């Protein structure tokens, strides 16, 4: 279930933008008319008829983005993010849907906690938001949550993100029982006895810096386990934030064997490598860690060929004082909602590593499909979920420029190209500048 504030749907005519919807096979300069939040006409010379007219000349109009992996920190750490600030940040990043992870305080593991969140979202969310519920109670990896009741109450899927389900037997039960809900089960793949207190990718850079290594196999071993369970049970599975070549290769083999597995990758894993950790900047610390150039190349290749079908920001806000500590003492996680598109446009599309159409698809239709959501599309009769992008705009990422309550971005000080000018989510203008 996706929830947001109620309100009047907008009437718009967006004129003269290059309309690009890879899923609909549209690419051309067109006018788009939106009546009461629904796309009503595509064409040229569409009259205003009293609608607000948006000049799209020189801009790109695409289906808005879907972020399947966001930490809204609510309940518990509203100083870091709230549903309101997080959805504003999402809108500023061009997203029309986001899915929030349940590793809050308390964990979203009961219908009561989930219900309270849905009520808050009805009052605060400027963009439709769905809430995943935990797979295990308290994310402790010991007992399953009441998945049926959580599904009935409106969970958008299940995940113990942040920690693995350590027991293979319990993971199997979750996948078996999760079938009755029809919702996605999304897994954080980490073999804790191998990652232990790992601070960064294990390799030449961790050897040099002395930071405890978190080896690739800590991820890929768990990926292999969960793919084997999904294959055995003939059930779909979604793999969160993949980082390692071995994981990608295991996924590719499983998909070729017919396993219904989807996976996501983050902008930071697509843009950076462990070499950047030499700066010891705590805003480069996350789980899974940045990996080698070879891993990064494998992720880009998998994104291109569709093995990885979704991009997820893994937006993980942290209070400033929590990150103003030595690298080794810093918590894992970086923000990313507001920079997801521009970072990938700058680092993948402009250098020619990934076509623009692929990026747009992996940020919208790909994640929607993985969680059984409607694909945002620019089609007559579809709800208006649109993002208006200015590919030529360049902007420096500054600490004070975020709508998120937190600024622990891995991009501070960097100049990015490709700005979001307007986001229409569920038929309403959620962001513009």
């Amino acid at each position, binding site marked *: 279930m996706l929830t947001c504030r109620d309100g009047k749907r907008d009437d718009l005519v967006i004129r003269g933008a290059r309309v690009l919807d890879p899923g609909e096979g549209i690419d051309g300069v067109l006018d788009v008319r939106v009546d009461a939040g629904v796309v009503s006409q595509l064409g040229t010379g569409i009259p205003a008829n009293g609608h607000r007219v948006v000049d799209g000349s020189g801009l790109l109009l695409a289906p808005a983005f879907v972020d399947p992996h966001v930490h809204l920190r609510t309940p518990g750490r509203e100083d870091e993010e709230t549903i309101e600030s997080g959805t504003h940040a999402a809108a500023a990043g061009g997203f029309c849907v986001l899915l929030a992870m349940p590793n809050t305080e308390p964990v979203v593991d009961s219908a009561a906690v989930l219900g309270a969140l849905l009520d808050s979202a009805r009052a605060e969310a400027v963009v439709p938001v769905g809430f995943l519920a935990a797979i295990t109670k308290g994310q402790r990896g010991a007992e399953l949550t009441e998945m049926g009741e959580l599904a009935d109450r409106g969970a958008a899927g299940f995940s113990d993100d942040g920690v693995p389900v350590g027991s293979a037997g319990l993971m199997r039960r979750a996948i078996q029982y999760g079938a009755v809900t029809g919702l996605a089960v999304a897994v954080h793949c980490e073999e804790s006895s191998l990652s*232990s207190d790992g601070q960064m990718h294990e390799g030449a850079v961790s050897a040099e810096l002395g930071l*405890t*290594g978190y080896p690739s196999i800590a991820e890929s071993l768990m990926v292999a386990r969960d793919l084997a369970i999904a294959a055995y049970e003939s059930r779909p599975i979604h793999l969160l934030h993949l980082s390692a070549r071995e994981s990608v290769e295991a996924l590719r083999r499983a998909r070729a064997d017919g396993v219904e597995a989807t996976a996501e990758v983050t902008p930071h894993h697509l843009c950076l490598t462990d070499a*950047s950790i030499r700066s010891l900047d*705590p805003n480069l610390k996350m789980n899974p860690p940045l990996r080698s150039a070879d891993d990064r190349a494998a992720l880009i290749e998998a994104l291109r060929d569709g093995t990885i079908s979704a991009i997820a920001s893994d937006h993980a806000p942290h209070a400033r004082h929590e990150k103003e500590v030595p690298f080794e003492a810093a918590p894992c996680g970086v923000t990313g909602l507001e920079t997801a598109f521009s970072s990938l446009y700058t680092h993948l599309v402009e250098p020619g590593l990934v076509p623009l159409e692929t990026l747009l698809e992996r940020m919208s239709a790909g994640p929607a499909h993985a969680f059984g959501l409607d694909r945002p599309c620019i089609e007559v009769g579809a709800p208006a979920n649109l993002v208006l992008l200015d590919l030529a705009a360049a902007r420096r990422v500054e600490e004070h420029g975020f709508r998120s309550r937190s600024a622990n971005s891995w991009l501070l000080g960097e100049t990015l190209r490709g700005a979001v000018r307007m986001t229409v989510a569920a038929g309403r203008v959620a962001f513009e500048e």
Partner: protein
Amino acid sequence: MANSIKLVRDDLRPPAGPPRRHLISIADLSRKDVERLLATARSLARSLEREMKKLPTLRGRTVVNLFYESSTRTSSSFELAAKRLSADVMSIKAAGSAVDKGESLKDTALTLAAYDPDVIVIRHPHIGAPRLIVGCTDAHVVNAGDGKHQHPTQALLDLYTIQQELGRVEGLHVAIVGDVLHSRVARSNVQALTLMGARVTLVGPPPLIPRGIEAMGCEVSHDIDTIKAADVVYVLRMQRERMQEGAAFVPSLREYTARWGITPERLRPGQKVMHPGPMNRGVEIDPRVADAEEALIVDQVRSGLVVRMAVLYDLLTHGPVEVKAAVAEEVA
């Protein structure tokens, strides 16, 4: 009003000069920097041979020693080094300070920065602590050990000791033996020794040799007999305090000692032996080796004083000990 205060503040400040210099990692130094520091240490050593051992060089300067980990030789030698150069010294230990009350490293640094120290020497259990201090004070920052990362003054004093005792560093073969994984001393020494043209072989049990460390320009061996080929055998402390329960890097200290402990039988006559201290006699080093004439362990401590004097002198006078701009990113 606020505006006028700001103007006064700016007036009181000297015009923006070159960025402050720090010593965070050996990787920040060029071979020339190291040669200059060692030459400074040699001339300071001569001054210490006089009856009046105090030099007026850093009179009126303030050095703060901020130690978050226990230390005997490093903290005492930094303190004495600063005093020998006539600087004012404050030594702060985490135990018994506001740190005990939960003060963050940043706040402690800001508090100390209010006294306008010229140098802050920091030891901290967490990698990256010196970088944080650099970001919140105007002082020159010297890393006296941050977690498993770096201990640059140790490596400099080791170079100085080798040069004094063997006459050179270039072309020598140094075997570093033991728990490399948890050793900041090993990392700084690999960088320092290879920078100065020595050949380095790391020797120890596979779980204690970090994967991929060959990229630093050293060789790796798991066979203790390879140390016979070295000119210097550098023995690392078995860092028992860093071995978490159940981590099982080695089955037991007993087995470690039997396989990798440095005994007279495993050495070639005349081979020099070094150890950064504190030693676990009977674990990584046989007492007969520690007390032998070939052991340079006490020389290392003595070198520590003049080398740390040289570092303080260099930072506060002329030498360009620069922190290279951090590699902020590595993209396509």
